[in-house]
């Protein structure tokens, strides 16, 4: 079977997406993305800029938001709440992982 070589982009703080791109890639209407920004689910790189730009991590958050919105049939406010709690859990898990790495293993 033929295999394709493909270029990939890291979804980190260095990647950039416009509001329209973010909405399209997350499958959420632009107006709802604006609402999610208002509720603090994601933060544009410069919230005061006339045209919002988002980093790669925002796309991941918005994709989670998109899945929750469809999967649970939720309003933007509920989505924003769950997304922020999920991110807090993720941050705690990552902190826990880092602390665990610093503990000597018992042999």
């Amino acid at each position: 079977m033929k295999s394709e070589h493909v270029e990939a982009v890291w979804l980190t703080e260095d990647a950039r997406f416009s509001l329209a791109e973010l909405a399209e890639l997350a499958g959420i209407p632009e107006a709802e993305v604006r609402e999610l920004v208002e509720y603090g689910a994601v933060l544009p790189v410069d919230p005061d800029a006339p045209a919002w730009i988002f980093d790669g991590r925002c796309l991941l958050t918005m994709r989670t938001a998109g899945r929750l919105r469809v999967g649970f049939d939720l309003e933007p406010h509920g989505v924003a709440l769950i997304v922020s709690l999920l991110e807090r859990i993720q941050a705690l898990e990552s902190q826990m992982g880092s602390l665990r790495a610093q503990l000597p293993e018992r042999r």
Partner: protein
Amino acid sequence: MKYKDYYSILGIERGATAEDIKKSYRKLAHKYHPDVSKDPKGEEKFKEVAEAYNTLKDPEKRVAYDQLGSHRSGEDFQPPPNWNRPSGDAQFSFDDADLADLFAGLSGRQRGGPGGTPMRMPGEDYEVTAQISLADAYAGTEVELNLTVPERDKQGIVRRVPRVFKVRIPKGAKDGQRLRLAGRGGKGMNGGRDGDLYLNVALLAHPLFRLSGHDLYIDLPLAPWEAVLGATVEVPTLGGTVRLKVPPNTHAGQQLRLTGRGLPAPGGKAGDLFALAQIVVPAAAGEKERELFKQLAQDSTFNPREHFKSEATT
């Protein structure tokens, strides 16, 4: 084509009301939705549940599904004559079609925009996890992804076809980092954009190194005399073995930092490797060693529990 019993997947009777369907779906979504479930098979189960719900919640699709009759799950079956078949195609076969794709196609063909123009539908996004070793994350690697993706044939029916992608994972991948491969998901319909492929990088546990972001931690066992006198010891790193100078009077738990010996990070920087000093004793000391330790015990004035006296009463 394999039959899927959407009613039993949702745990409901064939005569269930729209409200029953929704209730049952919500219960199962709470249990299996990949963003909230801890069940390792959650994603797979949620897909099944969502597929069943998306068909049964839509009255038109539910009628079309009911027309397929009732079969056992996984049983091979053919839809009844003229069931949603491309017109005038006597040779058409449903053999390798997937039930979910047929219903997805149903909405694509029947639901038009204003003036009967077909609705633009974006292609499906795929999420795949690639497990790579720490050594591969350190040096960069290429992974081969074997996917079965839905593609439309000439009759407009979706078929599952195998595709292989080779993706370069640049060095310095962190655990849980995502790559986006634009346009490598499912094909869009009626002018809709192609979906994307998201690759989740998962780093496999290493027998020696533990990971914290781009930093690595390794246990460094030292003999009591090495800890007291200091020593130069060989320490493995992902880039090869290095010699590390352990200073005299090293305590257990002390971290010795090997700058830049962790995982590479963006911008040409790299994390550090921390060696955690551990003082270990022989499982069974030999005669000579015991003698020497006895001598030391007699001669030493060191009391490791000195602080007990002053702090126990405070």
